[in-house]
């Protein structure tokens, strides 16, 4: 068994300058993880696979961490003008203020690695996007572990992380024309549950474009 501290030390010895941090897991499971800077991720992954024999990527998934608004009470010194004994004086006073600050969120890709040849694991690898809106790109680990191919497609589909270097990045479970990412925490379900694009729509519109009498029973279109 190899600990995350040892893995971190091994990575830093082999790839100086690679950004690796340990994310502590307070649960009794004791599965701590390694947070890797996205730009170094492919190099780190290659090192883990080839040198530390983590040859088997079991699970790859996304986690959505929305923007958090934190309100905290801050004590600040403030100049306050007061009337003391009939004369105006400027006094410094401690005032408690409630400030709100927004901690920017991110989407995380989590990979669980095991070693088949040496039988140990899991080693948990994490990568974080810059934010949740426009900078959602991460490097794909599919060239390193083929097991990530469908799972990264699923993360792209359900969370909206764009994996650079993925050989075939398409939606996996939702249909291609679907716009949103359902596994995000702020996803709102559409009102029209009934509506699903079907081949019938397309055929019907083509038939209507040809003209002719298309107003029989059942041809009124969707309600």
């Amino acid at each position, binding site marked *: 068994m190899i600990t995350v501290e040892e893995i971190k030390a091994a990575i830093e010895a082999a790839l100086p300058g690679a950004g690796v941090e340990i994310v502590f897991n307070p649960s*009794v499971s004791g599965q701590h993880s390694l947070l890797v800077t996205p730009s170094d991720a492919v190099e780190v992954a290659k090192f883990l696979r080839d040198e530390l024999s983590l040859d088997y990527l079991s*699970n790859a998934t996304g986690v959505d961490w929305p923007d958090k608004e934190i309100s905290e009470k801050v004590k600040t010194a403030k100049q306050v003008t007061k009337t003391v004994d009939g004369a105006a004086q400027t006094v410094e006073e401690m005032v408690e203020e409630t400030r709100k600050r927004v901690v920017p969120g991110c989407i995380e890709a989590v990979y*669980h690695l095991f070693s088949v040849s040496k039988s140990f694991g899991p080693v948990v690898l994490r990568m974080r996007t810059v934010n949740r809106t426009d900078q959602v790109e991460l490097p794909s680990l599919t060239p390193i*572990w083929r*097991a990530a191919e469908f799972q990264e497609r699923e993360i792209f589909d359900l969370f909206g992380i764009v994996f650079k270097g993925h050989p075939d990045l398409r939606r996996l479970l939702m249909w291609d024309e679907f716009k949103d990412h359902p*596994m995000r925490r702020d*996803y709102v379900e559409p009102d029209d549950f009934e509506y699903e694009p079907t081949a019938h729509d397309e055929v019907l519109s083509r038939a209507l474009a040809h003209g002719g009498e298309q107003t029989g029973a059942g041809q009124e279109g969707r309600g």
Partner: protein
Amino acid sequence: MTTIPRVADFASSKGKPDGWNRPQVVEPDGEGELLEVAMGPHHPSTHGVFRMDVALDGERVIRLKPVFGYLHRNHEKIAEGISYLGSMPFTDRLDYICPLTNNWAYALAVEKLTGQAVPERAEYLRVILGELTRVQNHASSIGFLIQEMGASGTPLMYAFREREKILDLFESLTGARMMVNYMRFGGCRVDATEGWLAATRKVVAGLPAFTEEIERLLCSNEILMARTQGVGILPPDLAVNAGVTGPMLRASGVNYDLRKVDGYGIYNRFNFRVPLGDHWDVYDRFMVRLLEMRESIKILEQALKDVPGGPVMDPKAKIRGFRPKAGEAYGRIEAPKGELGFYLISDGGPNPYRYRVRPPSLINLTVLEDMAIGQNLADVVLIFGSVDIVLGEVDR
């Protein structure tokens, strides 16, 4: 005689060129255009609603793209909106052929998250039910494979006859044949009576005759050998790299069984062997499943010999107001189809913050294209059948 290579010989991808793990590119040699066929979503061989977009040069497969999502209901999103226990009945619906192992994997992940202990008797019941599940899954999987080869009916019915006996046991213990909802965090829902254990011993005593019968019926069948041997070869280095698990991985000669590797539950108390293939083809996958049934029967005989008394539920287990401390855990078991894992993140609330199923059926399909390229279309049906998937788990 071929010798099975050790895992370390091929698991390292050091020194291999970039892109070695991609499907090979086959050039069409015939004249004219490629024929593009959508097999599915309602094709008799696809075990449900699944589509393969195949490009054919005559009979030969040039390209194959699986298309998923016809049965997608976003199980993970639903689970994030309900309590931990609320997802337990829903796990039955993932791989509906083996609901008990799904229950077990989920219970194991939550027990890892909370550090919950499981009483001895419950562990024994879990092993007995898990191995019964494996036997009936492999039996029906073999039955379906032979069915797809054109032997309509007989072998499948032989397999289903045995499966019914096992499902009857599930029904008398849990109240349902398939949607069992049986395991809990820290044990099992109801205790097994002496009568149930006696009935199980009786069914298990009849199982060796069934495997004998299937072996005599199929193993040296000329048509089966002609159709499956040398078809759909999956090399072990690709299998490991592509995350293939379960009987498929072991048929590629990789000795990796989580019952041995992790020794979860009480599996390290039992004596059983791990069957491996050495030709890596469809026949090996069929054979590994057959041999695994025999090993499961061995485990069942050992487990049923000494089921200890005591409670089936940890009396200290918290049921109401179940809120695990913040943190995360990944728990996995050797389900009949491969490694079934659950990844849970708790934020201290009553619902999981993140709930993820690692579906063996979906990930085993990663290599479907690699195995099918260059083969005949009729063999693709067999290769697909030998992967052994259930669409409820693929699409979730």
